[in-house]
């Protein structure tokens, strides 16, 4: 398996675009576990797409996680109590 050929095959771009079938997605996940350079490439491609969307402050959204979680937890508990 040539990692460079795999990276250049286009499957990682298709993964980021959400176009893969289940079998292909599992394959990419397995390749990421095996080859860190594929994981890195996938991160860079996804980050590029996020920035393309204008989501340049996306890292800020991480800090919202606790707030989102607390709100979801409250709503979920209210609805299921």
């Amino acid at each position, binding site marked *: 398996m040539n990692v460079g050929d795999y990276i250049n095959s*286009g499957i990682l*771009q*298709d*993964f*980021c*675009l*959400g*176009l*893969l*079938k*289940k079998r292909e*997605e599992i394959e990419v*996940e397995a390749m*990421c*576990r095996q080859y860190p350079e594929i*994981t890195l490439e*996938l*991160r*860079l*491609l*996804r*980050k*590029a*797409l*996020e*920035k*393309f*969307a*204008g*989501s340049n*402050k*996306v*890292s800020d*959204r*991480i800090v*919202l*996680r606790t*707030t*989102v*979680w607390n*709100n*979801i*937890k409250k*709503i*979920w*508990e209210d609805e*299921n109590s």
Partner: protein
Amino acid sequence: MFTTDIDTSQLATPKRFITNTNSNSIVLDTATLVQMVQSKSEKGFNILYDNYCGVLYGILIKFVEKNDVADDLLQEVFLKIWKNIDSFDSERGTLFTWLLNIARNHAIDYIRSSYHRNQLLHVRIDSFDSKQNYNNLNDSNNTSVEFKDVKNRFLKLDSKYADVINLIFFYGCTYEQTASIMNLPLGTVKTRARKGIGMLKILYRH
């Protein structure tokens, strides 16, 4: 019922996840993640959020353009994911595609709501609904605000690549649908999408 600590059986392969808070994290085992979220595990939520908040926020901000609105929608999207994770069927598609569709549909629902219609009358979300409408976008008088904004913001990316990525990533078209809308060969669409993302990676490397 919430579980703040997941069952140890769910941690059989914990190293498959990148669990730091880096928004670039990639979920390496979505099947396990789905099980964790289905069990209403807080840890599962955290991993889900860390891995997908960036890309889902990207979809939302692309549609609504306002950070505060996108923040609200992001929370609603995660609530929707949380409530409906049991309906996710891995046989019908990938988790990532399912999440993207929830975000797209939620943003479109918001834009179509009467409130938003009154706020932003100039936004035309149906611009990409047909080949005829797509062709109209090439007429500067008819170009939607949203589409023009993308063109202005990303001058370095040739529109022939940006248009393909827009249709697929933001509007959820398949390669085949994109080829039909743009009246291009399927191979050309695939090449432009993949090459375009590669160019974006270089543009946004720093």
